């Protein structure tokens, strides 16, 4: 049976992960390669590395990090953050990433998705969407890490991204992100039931039950989280044992 995927997300700045405190046995706690391997050995199904560096030099450092991660990691990984042109995608895939996630640049210029897909295939293109439930009850897409509102709705943009060839949708609820009160299950279910490509839930994980709810109520194909893993609040082997007990197919 196709397993629901558990995906830790690592923020990377100047080639070092910025969170990650509970892997005390690591020689370098901030080393993305060591942290990635540790998660892989715990049973993570995939990893996401997000480049939060702004500078040009930082981008080069990030590509070097991708090369090192690709040499060591035996599971698939996605890289994202600041990808705005086909040349960025080419550089990161050549460094060994399996997938790239595009966010603001694709929302600003949707043709970017088609360009990536026609050069490298749908399977490499993850469309990341940051959206917020507004007072009027509509989920609206945001740019620049949630700082700039747009007039596109979540449903509308996710569907367009699929039609342009994106291979997966990574939906982060700005309302739920960091709150640790669970994922945006109603919006997730609407997305997952409408789309024919996988949907990754992001934002809101605080307990093991929240992951179950994202799969059972939200119909998500995968769930992504950062701090609950980085700070050791939830350990992946225990999470998977719990989900399995709840009759959710996971890789163990």
């Amino acid at each position: 049976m196709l397993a629901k995927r558990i995906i830790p997300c690592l923020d990377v700045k100047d080639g070092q992960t910025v969170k990650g405190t509970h892997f005390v046995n690591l020689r370098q706690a901030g080393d993305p390669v060591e942290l990635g391997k540790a998660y892989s050995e715990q049973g993570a199904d995939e990893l996401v590395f997000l480049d939060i560096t702004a500078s040009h030099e930082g981008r080069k450092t990030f590509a070097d990090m991708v090369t090192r991660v690709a040499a060591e990691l035996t599971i698939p990984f996605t890289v994202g953050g600041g990808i705005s042109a086909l040349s960025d995608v080419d550089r990161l895939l050549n460094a060994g990433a399996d997938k790239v996630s595009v966010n603001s640049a694709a929302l600003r210029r949707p043709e970017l998705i088609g360009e990536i897909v026609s050069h490298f295939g749908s399977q490499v293109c993850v469309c990341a969407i940051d959206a917020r439930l507004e007072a009027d009850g509509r989920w609206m897409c945001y740019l620049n890490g949630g700082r700039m509102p747009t007039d596109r709705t979540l449903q509308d943009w996710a569907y367009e991204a699929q039609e342009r060839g994106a291979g997966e949708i990574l939906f982060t609820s700005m309302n739920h992100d960091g709150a640790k009160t669970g994922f945006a299950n109603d919006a997730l279910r609407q997305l997952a039931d409408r789309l024919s490509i996988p949907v990754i839930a992001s934002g809101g994980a605080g307990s093991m039950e929240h992951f179950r709810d994202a799969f059972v109520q939200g119909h998500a194909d995968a769930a992504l989280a950062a701090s609950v893993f980085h700070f050791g609040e939830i350990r992946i082997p225990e999470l998977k044992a719990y989900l399995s007990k709840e009759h959710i197919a996971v890789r163990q």
Partner: protein
Amino acid sequence: MKIAIVKYNAGNIYSVVNALKRLGVDPVLTDDAEQLRTADRVLFPGQGEARQAMTYLQATGLDRVICDLRQPVLGICIGQQLMCRHSEEGDTDCLGIFPVDVKRFRPQQHEFKVPHMGWNQLEATDGFIRDAVPSGSFVYFVHSFYVPVCEFTAATCDYILPFSAALQKDNFYATQFHPEKSGKVGEQILRRFLEIEQD
């Protein structure tokens, strides 16, 4: 041991190179017929579209070179599909090493998304897969087309319907999944392929 990877117009072979290096072998990426013929093992990986890949293989003569190889050859993902007789992708005649036709997934229920992407289980393992890992092992798939179960099936996987997760015939081996991205299970399968005794 000399390991050659077929160089052609299908993408993402770096992960295969990396996986082999982790196993302690240093593969050569080549489209040179003599290098491919004299290698101890040949890998035929890649992601791409069947018609474009076959057009390239025919134009370069690599199609005949691959079919005539005598050492153990491992096709991965699109490599497995290209080693079959025909693919629905682009209505393409393929290499014909495995006498079976590649079909497109046609989901009947919305829960079945295409591509089949993620970790799924190997069942009914046989041949080199049975020698490497237990039935029920999880491996990583990304594909929209599949090889039906046939007499050369070395493992099945169930998604929408049971299909061939791996094939084996004479010196030709193939996997629909990505052993190079399948954690320890994938490493065991690649290691087993490298260890196969040659007749």
